[in-house]
C-alpha cells in the first residue's frame, strides 16, 4: 500500500460510514450546486443586460448626461455626432436610437417592446446573428427585425408577417438570434430613421447614443478626454465602461445583485453546517482513537491532516458531482431561453469557495482535537 497516508485514512473513515458520507455529499452538492446556479444566472443576466453594447463594434459610447444604463436613456441633439466625427482620432461615428414602444398582439392587447434603431448600411448597433433574413433589408421601408427570443411573448412570427408597432404597420423582414434584454422585453430592430419617426417623443433631431471608433495609432483615453472637454450635456465612455455601468445598474441599484449574493452566502453557510456537523460527529466518534495517537506521540498537526483530508475529500467529491449537475442544468436553462454562464473562471471561483467552505467547517473539529487530553483514554 504505497499510498498509505493521512489522506487515505480520512478516505477510509468516510467510506466506512457510507450512509453518512452520502448524505454529506448530497448536502455539499446541493449547496455548491446552488452557488453555481446563482453565480451562473447572475453572470448570465449581466451578460444579457449589456449584450447590445458588447456586440456593437466601436470603442466609445456617448450618452445623455447622467444616463444610468442602456435601456433607460434620454435623447440628446443629433448634431453632437458631427462634433464627434470632427474630433481628431475618430475613424467613424454611428448613431443609435433605443426606446420603449408598444406592439399590438395578434390576439388583441399590446406588449411592451424595446426598439433599437440603427444604420442598416453599416449594421453597427444592429443584430449580429441572423436566423432568417438580412439586416441590410431594413432600409427603404417600414421594416423590422424581431429577435427569436421575442416569440415567447409575441407568438410565432415569420419573415413576411406584419405587426403594428406604435400604430404603424411594419413588415418583419428578419429573425435575429442571441439578443435578449435584461428586462425580458422583446427587442425589435428597425432602421435609425424609422425609429426616429416612430418614437415621436424623442424629437426629430435627437438621438439616444453615439458610437465611435478610434482610428489606428490614437490613444482612446486622450480622445475621450478631448471629447469630454468639447461636448456639453453628454457623458463619454469607453465601450467597456458603459457596459460595466449598465451591468452595475442592474446588479446594484435594483438590488438584484444583493439578492443573488444573499442566496450564495446562505448556500455557503448551509454547506459549512452540513460538512462541519459530519466531520465533528466523525471526530467525536473517533476521539479515543485520536487520543490514542496523541498518547503514542502524534503531534496535533499530524492528526489535523486527517481532519482536513476529510474536509478536502468532501469538497472535491461534492464539487465534481455538482459540476456535472450544473453542466446538465445549463442545457435546461438554455432551453428556457435563460442564460447561465459556466466558464473556467466560474469553475475556479466555485472550487475555491467549496474548498474554503469545507475546510472552514472542519475547524470546530480541529479545536476539539487540540483540546483532547490523552488522559481520557484511561478507563473512558
Amino acid at each position, binding site marked *: 500500500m504505497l499510498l498509505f*497516508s493521512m489522506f487515505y485514512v480520512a478516505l477510509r473513515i468516510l467510506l466506512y460510514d457510507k450512509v453518512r458520507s452520502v448524505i454529506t455529499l448530497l448536502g455539499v452538492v446541493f449547496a455548491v450546486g446552488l452557488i453555481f446556479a446563482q453565480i451562473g444566472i447572475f453572470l448570465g443576466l449581466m451578460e444579457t443586460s449589456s449584450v447590445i453594447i458588447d456586440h456593437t463594434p466601436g470603442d466609445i459610447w456617448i450618452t445623455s448626461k447622467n444616463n444610468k444604463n442602456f435601456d433607460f436613456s434620454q435623447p440628446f441633439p443629433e448634431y453632437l455626432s458631427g462634433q464627434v466625427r470632427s474630433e481628431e482620432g475618430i475613424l467613424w461615428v454611428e448613431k443609435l436610437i433605443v426606446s420603449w414602444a408598444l406592439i399590438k398582439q395578434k390576439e388583441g392587447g399590446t406588449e411592451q417592446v424595446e426598439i433599437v434603431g440603427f444604420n442598416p448600411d453599416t449594421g453597427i448597433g444592429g443584430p449580429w446573428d441572423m436566423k432568417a433574413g438580412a439586416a441590410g433589408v431594413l432600409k427603404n421601408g417600414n421594416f423590422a427585425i424581431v429577435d427569436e427570443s421575442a416569440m415567447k411573448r409575441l407568438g410565432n412570427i415569420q419573415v413576411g408577417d406584419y405587426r403594428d408597432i406604435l400604430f404603424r404597420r411594419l413588415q418583419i423582414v428578419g429573425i435575429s438570434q442571441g439578443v435578449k434584454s435584461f428586462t425580458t422585453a422583446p427587442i425589435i430592430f428597425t432602421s435609425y430613421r424609422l425609429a426616429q419617426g416612430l418614437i415621436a417623443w424623442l424629437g426629430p433631431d435627437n438621438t439616444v447614443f453615439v458610437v465611435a471608433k478610434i482610428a489606428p495609432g490614437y490613444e482612446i483615453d486622450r480622445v475621450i478626454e478631448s471629447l469630454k472637454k468639447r461636448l456639453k450635456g453628454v457623458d463619454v465612455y469607453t465601450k467597456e465602461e458603459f457596459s460595466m455601468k449598465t451591468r452595475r445598474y442592474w446588479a446594484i441599484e435594483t438590488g438584484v445583485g444583493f439578492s443573488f449574493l444573499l442566496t450564495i452566502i446562505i448556500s455557503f453557510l448551509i454547506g459549512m453546517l452540513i460538512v462541519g456537523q459530519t466531520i465533528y460527529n466523525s471526530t467525536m466518534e473517533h476521539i479515543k482513537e485520536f487520543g490514542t495517537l496523541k498518547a503514542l506521540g502524534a503531534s496535533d498537526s499530524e492528526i489535523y491532516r486527517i481532519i482536513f483530508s476529510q474536509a478536502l475529500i468532501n469538497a472535491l467529491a461534492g464539487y465534481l458531482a455538482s459540476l456535472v449537475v450544473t453542466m446538465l442544468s445549463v442545457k435546461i436553462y438554455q432551453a428556457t431561453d435563460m442564460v447561465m454562464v459556466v466558464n473556467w473562471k466560474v469553475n475556479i471561483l466555485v472550487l475555491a469557495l467549496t474548498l474554503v467552505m469545507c475546510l472552514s467547517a472542519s475547524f470546530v473539529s480541529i479545536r476539539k482535537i487540540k483540546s483532547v487530553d490523552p488522559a481520557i483514554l484511561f478507563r473512558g
Partner: protein
Amino acid sequence: MGKPIITNSLTKVYSEGRVEVTAVSGVDIELNEGEVVGLFGPSGSGKTTLLCMLGCILSPTSGSLKLYGNEITGLDEKALPAIRKKYISFIFQGFNLFPALTASENIMLVLKLKGETGMAAEQRARELLSVVGLAERTNFLPRDLSGGQKQRVAIARALAADSPLILADEPTGNLDHENGRNVMEILIKLAVEQQRCVVVATHDNRIENAFDRVLVMEDGKIVTETRRPA
C-alpha cells in the same frame, strides 16, 4: 540509557475549587528493563494517575520522574509528546482501534507517524501481527475480530511505536480468562525477549501471578511491593 523509570517522592495533587485531592503521594519506585510490573489497587487508589504520570500524560505536582535517564519533571508540556513518541507505548482496555482501518492499517498508521511508509511499513505491520499470532488476520477490520484479537492488534500497534516502555491500563479488562492469559503471555514475552519494561495497571487478580513485581496502591501510596521469587 538509564533505568526505564525512577521516581522520587512523586506526587500529584488535584485542585477542585477550594478542595485539594491528593491522588498520588510520595511514590518511590525503580523499574528495570525486561520487567513486567503489575499495579494493583481498588478504584480511586491512584493507579491511573500514577500510570498517566509515568506515561508523561500528566505532569506531577512535586517529586521527580526520570525516564531512561531523562529528567521529566519540570519539562514544558509541549515537549512531552516527543518523549512519549521516543520511549512510551500504551495499551488500553478499550483497544481504541480505528474501526475503518484493517488490523495492518491500524499498525501502519503508527508506523507512518514514526516515518515508516510504503512496502517497508506494510511488511513491518505483517511481522508485528505475526508476533502477536494474528498473521492470518492482516486484512480484517476490527468489527470482524474478537476482543482478544483486537487487544493483540493493539499490542502490535504499541510494538510498532518501538518503545522500550509499555504502559497498559486494564489490558485484560474486557477479555475472558483465556484471552486475558494470551495477552499477558505476549506482554511477558515482549519483556523477556525484547527487554522492554511493561507496567500493567489492573484489577484483574487472575493475572497476578504473571508479574515479576506487584505494587499495591491505596489512597495514593504504594502500600506493598512483592517480587516473584527468581
